[in-house]
């Protein structure tokens, strides 16, 4: 049995445990009284504040129950926000406007709770004088960007984050970079800077984040790259060291995607054989979790599984099981669970299918139970920290302005699920890398939902726990566990991957989805329903990289290679020796990143470990 089998058992055991607690609360008078007393105490501690209209609202909404069994079911089964099993949220408070003043102490109790005082004070310090009310936490908005050359993306980063207190940059790389190929390689020139930024060397990395204080507490960088992730990570560290010295390393904050499993299952951007890729990944995780405690070295991603056409349940099941497989590998290498568990983060797709009403809620629960009961993680390591992106494949080229509405609905679902950060897609995504006009609208969509509207800013749990949501939760949890069983019966995640189980399941689902569009089961507005017969193709500003820019990248890469020719060969030999010896490769990679290009490193590694062999 792989650890996944143990996870299945632990979730079942937990559900049984909840059931028993409910029964006990109903039969054991003392325990029942404990439950109701605890419930009253929790409610008494919830502050109440006024909405701008004067309506008093509790900061946390709870179900209107007073019977001990139901209370036990809620506290053990769902958990308060920030409490095991985190169904309602990884943290106690999310998206809430800071408390200005406490109007009424609590649900019927006027005593002011301690926590709220701290909040009011902290915020007071920030909003002296004329006060635009700003939330004290980081904005959850995280926008993805990457185009042309490093300096072009850098400009876009400054544009996007100009008005944000926290600089949360998310980087898209171009095709050659994603495949570990240099811009000067034969046959890739047209792809340089297309769909993302071209990064070949540490010098590009310096240009990419120029003007940002990468060691500052309000800065975090996210890099969406997996196949060559350890090499790109090494370049990021090398660039930060060049700009701020070696002391910056422990302060670096951010995320690198680095998820090899989902690449093999769905996204196809992987360059080494799976086992070798996993080794380089674990080398990097081991190193960064020790030396860069604020960095997330892997973002376990369902997004691309969803985008490749999986069902929502497949997306959650494969993502979670991939996560448990990483945890199993790291534990097997002897990395302490509390060193890595809290540094694993997740990335899910949010589309319009009904499952998305509760998909992330259930995922949070399963992750927490598995990490606590199977891996022995402490609470920090039980939390499923989630970045969500609205669905790209739900966006349609025909009557593309409808995509604003699609994205708005998906954003609503994402925040109902308590995502920790979110990217909203631009309506022009079916055509191009988003233009500034549409990317601005996408960002504003989130601000309207979170800042303008009162849906999320006054009360936690505003939309949690409806009967419909509960029904979806139950159905989704059961379906995810069934998927786990299937994977376990194939010998666990790695064996299932090698038998291309997840791939073929995703492909079948994608085929079914397409057929459903054309047989009418899945109506698409503007395409299969209410189509405008006179629609003209839209005027879209296309982000295309001019040939001259591409040539500039090639030329400066060539200069870099000339300049470092001697040193590069030595660094590569050292890296090769590390690979052959079986030791952790990341320190040698860090040295190589100073003087070698991405393609030079990839090529040398492929000579030793081979190429990825695609699965059809």
């Amino acid at each position, binding site marked *: 049995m792989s650890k996944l089998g143990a996870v299945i058992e632990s979730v079942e055991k937990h559900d049984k445990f909840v059931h028993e607690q409910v029964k006990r609360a109903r039969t054991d008078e003392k325990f029942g009284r404990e439950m109701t007393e605890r419930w009253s105490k929790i409610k008494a501690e919830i502050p109440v504040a006024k909405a701008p209209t004067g309506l008093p609202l509790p900061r946390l909404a709870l179900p209107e129950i007073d019977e001990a069994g139901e209370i036990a079911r809620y506290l053990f089964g769902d958990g308060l926000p920030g409490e095991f099993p985190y169904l309602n949220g990884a943290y106690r408070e999310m998206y809430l406007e800071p408390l200005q003043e406490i109007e009424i102490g609590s649900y019927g109790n006027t005593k002011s709770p301690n926590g709220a005082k701290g909040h009011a004070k902290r915020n007071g310090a920030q909003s002296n004088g004329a006060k635009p009310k700003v939330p004290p936490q980081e904005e959850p908005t995280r926008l993805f960007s990457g185009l042309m050359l490093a300096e072009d993306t850098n400009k876009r980063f400054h544009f996007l984050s100009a008005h944000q207190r926290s600089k949360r940059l998310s980087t898209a790389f*171009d095709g050659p970079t994603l495949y570990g190929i240099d811009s000067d390689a034969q*046959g890739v020139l*047209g792809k340089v800077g297309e769909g993302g930024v071209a990064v070949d060397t540490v010098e590009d990395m310096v240009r990419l984040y120029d003007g940002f204080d990468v060691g500052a507490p309000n800065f975090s960088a996210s890099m969406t790259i997996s196949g060559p992730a350890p090499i790109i990570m090494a370049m990021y560290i090398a660039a930060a060291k060049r700009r701020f010295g070696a002391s910056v390393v422990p302060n670096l904050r951010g995320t690198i995607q680095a998820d090899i499993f989902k690449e093999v299952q769905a996204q196809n951007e992987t360059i080494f054989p799976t086992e070798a890729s996993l080794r380089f990944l674990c080398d990097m995780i081991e190193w960064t979790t020790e030396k860069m405690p604020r960095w997330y070295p892997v973002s376990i991603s369902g997004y691309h599984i969803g985008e490749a056409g999986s069902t929502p349940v497949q997306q959650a099941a494969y993502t979670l099981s991939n996560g448990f497989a990483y945890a199993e590998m790291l534990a097997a290498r002897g990395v302490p669970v509390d060193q890595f568990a809290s540094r694993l983060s997740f990335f899910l797709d949010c589309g319009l299918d009904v499952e998305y009403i509760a998909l992330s809620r259930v995922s949070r629960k399963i992750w927490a139970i598995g990490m606590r009961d199977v891996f022995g993680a402490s609470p920090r390591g039980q939390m499923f920290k989630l970045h969500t992106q609205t669905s790209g494949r739900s966006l349609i*080229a025909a009557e593309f302005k409808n995509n604003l509405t699609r994205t708005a609905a998906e954003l609503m679902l994402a925040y109902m699920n308590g995502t920790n950060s979110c990217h909203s897609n631009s309506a022009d995504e079916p055509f191009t890398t988003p233009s500034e006009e549409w990317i601005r609208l996408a960002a504003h969509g989130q601000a309207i939902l979170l800042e303008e509207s009162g849906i999320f800013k006054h009360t936690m749990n505003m939309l949690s726990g409806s009967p419909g949501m509960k029904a979806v939760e139950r159905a989704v949890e059961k379906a995810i566990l069934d998927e786990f069983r299937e994977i376990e019966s194939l010998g666990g995640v790695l064996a299932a991957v090698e038998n291309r189980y997840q791939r073929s399941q995703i492909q079948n689902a*994608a085929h079914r989805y397409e057929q459903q569009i054309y047989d009418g089961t899945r109506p698409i507005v503007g395409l299969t329903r209410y189509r405008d017969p006179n629609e003209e193709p839209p005027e879209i500003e*296309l982000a295309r990289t001019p040939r001259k820019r591409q040539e500039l990248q090639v030329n400066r890469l060539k200069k870099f290679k000339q300049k470092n020719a001697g040193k590069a060969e030595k660094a590569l030999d050292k890296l090769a020796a590390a690979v052959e010896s079986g030791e952790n490769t990341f320190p040698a990679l860090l040295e190589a990143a100073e003087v070698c290009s991405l393609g030079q490193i990839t090529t040398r590694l492929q000579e030793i470990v081979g190429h990825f062999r695609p699965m059809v």
Partner: protein
Amino acid sequence: MPAPVRILTAVPICDGHDSAINTINLEFIRHGIEVVYLGFHRYAGDIVRAAIQEDVGAIGISSYNGGHIDFFAEVVRQLRRLGAGDIAVFGGGGGTITNDDARLMKRQGVDQIFFAGTSLTEMADYVRKQYGKARNKKGGKNWDLALARELTAIEDAFAKGSREKKIKKNQKSAIRNSKVIGFTGPGGAGKTTLIDELVLRFLQNEPKARIAILSHDPSVVGAGALLGDRATMINSQDDRVFMRSMATRGQAGGLSPATESCLARLTNDDFDYVIIETVGTGQEALPFRNELIDQTVLVMNPDYGARLQLQKIVMLEVADIVVVNKTDLDRSKAALSEIEHRLTQNKRQQKIVATVAKRHRDPGVDELYKLITRRGRDDRTSRRAAKPRARKGKVRRR
């Protein structure tokens, strides 16, 4: 019956978006089309080489990662340069290929761009109508193309039931330049990966060797076929490798009705090795006629089931080499000793090799390579003496 329409599909270099093309491939097959699928992240040169060797009517490219104008133009340019301008190029990319782009691409020689919203049936109908037409049968000066078109003529003759174009079977006695190795075994044993790893060793160790591969995939009953071996055979996409993917077109036993004639044609050419891979076969299959094959390799998994099953595997009697692949799996030790015992009963000095083909530089595959080439070398020397190489000195492209 007319021969099925054959096309090749692929996703460009630095692009892994294969969701659309996977769905489209399935739909094409359902509509009776044979699809050679090259996979994702493919260089223009690899696509063109494969299209020529497979002699397809058209190339379909699914591009979602940008750079499509350059990429499609490069494919068209290379086809024309190699005398294969009659192979049409079509494609799509959802909304990423705009109307303006499509107009420009058509001016540059692309036949058709399908936009988002085109139904799958519409696409399949277009392909069948446009790309099933008869084309120039001569390959001109391009040697790959000429050979490919001869093979097409043989396949077509079998499809139509006309006999005159079929090359006479049983050409063992004719002059042969190549060593022929047949690979067979159950589905999932890893034949394709193993062959590709062998090809890597041929290419590395024999700088002038040329290899032909005849690879087989099953036709779907009453429909086309997905010929997908090229997608996983990364080392075999090389100018020194001529690969042809064949659909079984209704014939049982793991080969196509045209296989023997095509094989005879290939062995008369200038290849050092000709490799045939059958479809994954059952226990009783005996796909090769002995006189056509110099060496038969049976590739097995350690998990063939109970020991008794071994007695029923007919190929164990005739195989020259038995490869037990995936020996990193449980049970491989037991499997190896059971098979070894079974082979000693045959008293034929059959060789047994344990491999993990998916592993880079696997010593088991090295051993298999040695077994194949050692015997091969003697054979070939004598053949070489009999006939000077037909194309010696002729410059190959690139």
